[in-house]
């Protein structure tokens, strides 16, 4: 199953997503938790820890900092940029805005 969670700020998207991911993992599913918020916090609800969540390397940052060769496969992305969360959930953070960048 593939689920997207959406809603207004503060209603509990991250709490629902993180808890759902953990519950599915405990039932034996392999779970990929994808944080597509530019202000990513899903790690906290998954149990990775607040300060740890705040410094997770995002896919965007990883690609900008690393070699220019892109990963050819989705599995490669998940391996390279993912983080292990409790119950075997694999967490991938898409991007995080952390500098002034007028475009």
């Amino acid at each position, binding site marked *: 199953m593939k689920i997207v969670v959406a809603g*207004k*700020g*503060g*209603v509990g998207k*991250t709490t629902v997503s993180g808890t759902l991911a953990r519950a599915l993992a405990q039932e034996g599913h392999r779970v990929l938790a994808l944080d597509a*918020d*530019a*202000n990513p*916090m899903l790690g*906290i609800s998954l149990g990775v820890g*607040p300060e740890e*969540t*705040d410094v997770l390397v995002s896919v965007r940052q990883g690609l900008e900092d690393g070699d220019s060769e892109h990963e050819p496969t989705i599995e490669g992305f998940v391996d390279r940029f993912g983080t292990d969360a409790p119950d075997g959930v694999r967490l991938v953070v898409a991007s*995080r*805005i*952390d*500098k*002034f*960048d*007028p*475009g």
Partner: protein
Amino acid sequence: MSERGAIRVAVAGKGGAGKSTVAGTLARVLARRGHSVLALDSDTLPGLALSLGATAPAEPPLLAAAQQGDDGRWRLKKGIGPMRAIERYSVQAPDGVRLLQVGKHTDDGLKPVMGAVNAFYKVIHRLDEPSSLDRWAIVGDLPAGPRQLAYDWAPYADRLLLVVEPTWQSMLTARRIARIAGTPRPLALSLVVNKASSPAGVSQVETFLGMSALAVVPADDAVARAEHSGAAPFDAAPGSPAVSAIERLADALGSGSLTA
């Protein structure tokens, strides 16, 4: 404070922290005290109108202010400067507050309202031009998270109010915003702890961010009920602990005792 001496603040924080509640109530408090107030909502999921007690237009009024050149770039139409844009395309909120909104995004996303988005961005970058605005207070409500500060969406502000509730998500968001704020121009930071339910929660936020709170707004059922019913807290919950705390925030901002 700005050289003008007028209050120029933008309000930022995590989603649900209470940015619109603080911004809308602060704007109403200032207006009730006799200030001319321009309220700015740069969120395409707008919430400030509700907190002000204004009616939001269905279509972004600023669409009419923009035109797209042959090069594809958006401009303000000829003859429309910042003052005229405010006169024509803002809506009236209670107590004489003028509300200028970027406008709602549509079911087809932002594309149909890109003219309004561009017009709004140009107007807020030219608010220092009309001398008739010099004495106006400006209160801007930013969308959740650090994104708009990274893209220079609060150029009118000389002070950023970080609205933080005592949760880790809210504190981390505020820290991310604080790291970006101040580029490319100086921006004083003030902490507003919202939905405070214990002194320990307030201390935790203050310690984490390394700032003392300029205002502590308590968790308040009267405000929650107002927001549940879609009414402005300033109208539906006058004298409530939260609204009173925002009145004290207005005192602190206008007292001249702030150091940048």
